[in-house]
């Protein structure tokens, strides 16, 4: 679940943090992204910031869910007592999520309406808030008690839709494994090839609240007196490691953490938004590639099974009976015209195996991984088509389908591309790292053959890095255009006439194109990184 950021991914993340929280915070963030998980001492050493600046930056990053702290125990030197130290890890994906806040807001607005959107935006702006923090904001002079009731209802809706969740533990303690645990792991390793989780993955797992607590909204939280409820909340949150870790906190973060412990903090549940965007991407891809019927059936299946998905990146949809699918399909306007045969045909189009006898224990599970893979291929093919031309695209698709090395002559034959042209295209694509080349010798080196292949995982990483690079460039150009025409942007409405009016219109158009392109590019980044 943790992504190792690419070079341009880091640059984009740093640019985002710099524009939202300033250069000092960005410096700490960049240090963590480039060097990995670090304790405070080393962060100060690498960034050359003062301790206060480093601590404050970390607090900002933690508040905005960009950094997770955790405590580890190390053996004491020269037979001394074990030492507990706090480590800080950057959450790359959460940083990049800042780019897509407008998308998250649009989803909430569409699903729950304007009032819920308002509360949701506060959470996005502040990163983490308690119910009372939000209530305080809500209690502006213009609002009355009815508005307060509406607030409670809105917040409940946000939690029920899983758009917001309880924050993870501030600093979970990762106890060193006992001798028995080490022995058990060694035994298990003999039989399974499972790679052991990294310390970062373990820290995230330890910090996450249990599923039963994650979306638990206690009505007694809704008191207007924060002091009164603080004790109750702390007991409900009491994860095993909570109290243990407090002794280990470093002085800089100790007070903050102690204060936060008094109240349940809530934050935006990015996971739910990624899931919804993933579903949307699958449906839209199927609509474009197959037809509206298949998209309706897929939408119905995903809607019915969303809550039962155990993780975001599920490869297949949760199995659903034909009756349940029909029940969900007819809820939508497009689905009302579909009978069961039509639904079955759509399921077959979606790659589901048809049972030999329909009706008896007839359940279906749709291969979502394949749908997303095809969408990724479509994106890469469009790049190849525009960069190298139609013949190159044909060759690329052949190699992608072959999934092994293929000789130049065979490529030429199967794609109807002249051998000489094919060789030129293949070399060009190889030079740009789109293809892998292997030289095969025959007759003791007298004859040489060139073999070509698409190494998908490597190429996909390369394309994703290019996407981060392009997104960074769009942001930089956007900032440049805003700065260049600062006066035009602030032009009052009545002065937007004649030459000035034209310039304002051009400025508006440029901004629109750059912002919409960034959102579209972010869809592709999601497709390659998060889905």
């Amino acid at each position, binding site marked *: 679940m943790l992504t190792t950021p690419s070079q341009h991914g880091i*640059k984009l993340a740093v640019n985002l943090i710099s524009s939202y929280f300033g250069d000092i915070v960005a410096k700490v963030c960049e240090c963590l992204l480039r060097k990995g998980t670090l304790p405070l001492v080393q962060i100060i050493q690498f960034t050359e910031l003062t301790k206060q600046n480093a601590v404050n930056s970390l607090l900002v990053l933690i508040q905005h869910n960009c950094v997770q702290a955790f405590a580890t125990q190390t053996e004491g030197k020269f037979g001394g007592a074990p030492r507990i130290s706090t480590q800080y890890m950057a959450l790359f994906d959460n940083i990049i999520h800042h780019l897509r806040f407008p998308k998250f807001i649009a989803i909430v607005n569409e699903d729950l309406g304007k009032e819920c959107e308002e509360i949701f935006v506060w959470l996005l702006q502040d990163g983490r808030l308690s119910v009372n923090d939000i209530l305080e904001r809500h209690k502006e002079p213009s609002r009355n008690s009815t508005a307060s009731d509406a607030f409670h209802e809105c917040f409940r809706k946000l939690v029920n839709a899983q758009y917001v969740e309880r924050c993870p533990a501030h600093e979970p303690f990762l106890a060193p494994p006992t001798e028995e645990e080490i022995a058990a792991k060694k035994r298990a390793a003999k039989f399974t090839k499972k790679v052991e989780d990294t310390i970062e993955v373990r820290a995230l797992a330890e910090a996450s609240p249990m599923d039963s607590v994650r979306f638990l909204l206690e009505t007694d939280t809704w008191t207007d007196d924060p002091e009164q409820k603080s004790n109750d909340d702390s007991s409900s949150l009491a994860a095993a490691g909570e109290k243990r870790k407090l002794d280990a906190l470093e002085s800089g973060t100790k007070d903050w953490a102690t204060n936060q412990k008094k109240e349940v903090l809530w934050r935006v549940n990015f996971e739910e938004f990624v899931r919804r965007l993933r579903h949307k991407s699958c449906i839209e891809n199927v*609509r474009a590639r*197959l037809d509206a019927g298949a998209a309706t059936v897929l939408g119905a299946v995903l809607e019915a099974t969303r809550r039962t998905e155990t993780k975001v990146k599920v490869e297949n949809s949760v199995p659903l009976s034909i009756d349940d699918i029909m029940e969900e399909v007819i809820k939508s306007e497009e689905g009302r015209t579909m009978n069961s045969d039509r639904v079955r045909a759509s399921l077959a189009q979606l790659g589901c195996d*048809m049972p030999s006898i329909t009706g008896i224990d007839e359940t279906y599970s749709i291969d979502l991984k394949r749908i997303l893979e095809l969408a990724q291929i479509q*994106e890469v*093919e469009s790049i190849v088509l525009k960069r190298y031309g139609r013949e190159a695209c044909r060759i690329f698709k052949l190699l992608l389908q072959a999934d092994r090395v293929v000789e130049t002559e065979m490529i030429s034959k199967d794609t109807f591309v002249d051998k000489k042209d094919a060789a030129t295209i293949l070399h060009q694509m190889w030079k740009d790292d789109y293809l892998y080349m292997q030289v095969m010798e025959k007759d003791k080196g007298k004859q040489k053959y060139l073999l070509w292949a698409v190494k998908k995982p490597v190429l996909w990483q390369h394309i994703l890095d290019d996407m981060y690079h*392009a997104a960074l460039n*769009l942001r930089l150009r956007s900032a440049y255009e805003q700065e260049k025409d600062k006066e035009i942007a602030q032009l009052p409405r009545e002065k937007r006439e004649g030459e000035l009016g034209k310039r304002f219109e051009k400025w508006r158009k440029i901004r629109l194109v750059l912002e919409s392109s960034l959102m579209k*590019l972010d*869809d592709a980044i999601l497709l390659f990184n998060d889905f």
Partner: protein
Amino acid sequence: MSRVQDTMALKRKRGDQSLLTQSLGDADHNVLNIIKGKEGRGISSGELKKVSNLPTTQFNKSIKTLVARQLIKEVPNIKTSWGKHYMGAEFEPSAELTGGYWYADGKLDQELINSFKKICFQILQQKLKVATAEGVHSFFIKRKLYNGEISRDQIAEILRSMVLDNQIVEVKSTGLEEYHSIPVGEVCYRCATGGGLGETSKTKTGAMVSIPCGVCPNIRLCTPDGVISPTNCVYYTKWLDF
């Protein structure tokens, strides 16, 4: 869409050949026999020179004589773009040399290929909707859409190439609805309903290709403060020039 295949004009009767070979010298005979021995595979000029073991002047003279008397012919070899390739006049070049059905004069016959692609697309789009390679081939034969010979495999090659062009999609029959006439699991072809990436594409353009960086040849040289940067990029300036 027709290819002139007047092979008879290229062939010579044995009776005529004996008259033409009567006045040939020993060296010419030797060269002719080597070439004829290779039948439809022919022989490259380099190899022929090596095997005949003749001095260059004599070798060139023999080749010139044999070609002039139409006893041998020069044929294209798609495997090598350099050097000459010779063959007995009575033989037809093998598919290995010519490249096969889709080649003419040593080059891909793009006109022929495109014509077949166009017809196959029309058949799938307007007539059959979904069909196997066999189905498309039968349609060709029944409707006499092509005067020459075309095999099922050659139609399959065309269809596979159209799949690579995203003009059509390869699917497996489900036996349901429009697939009812095709056995379940059999590979068949249909038009890409979403449009694919073909020239008539209806799908949305890729995110990367709709911005300058997506296809920029200098993307690797581009840095925020470098000589090439997004703020001074000429492609960006052109893109945003409304």
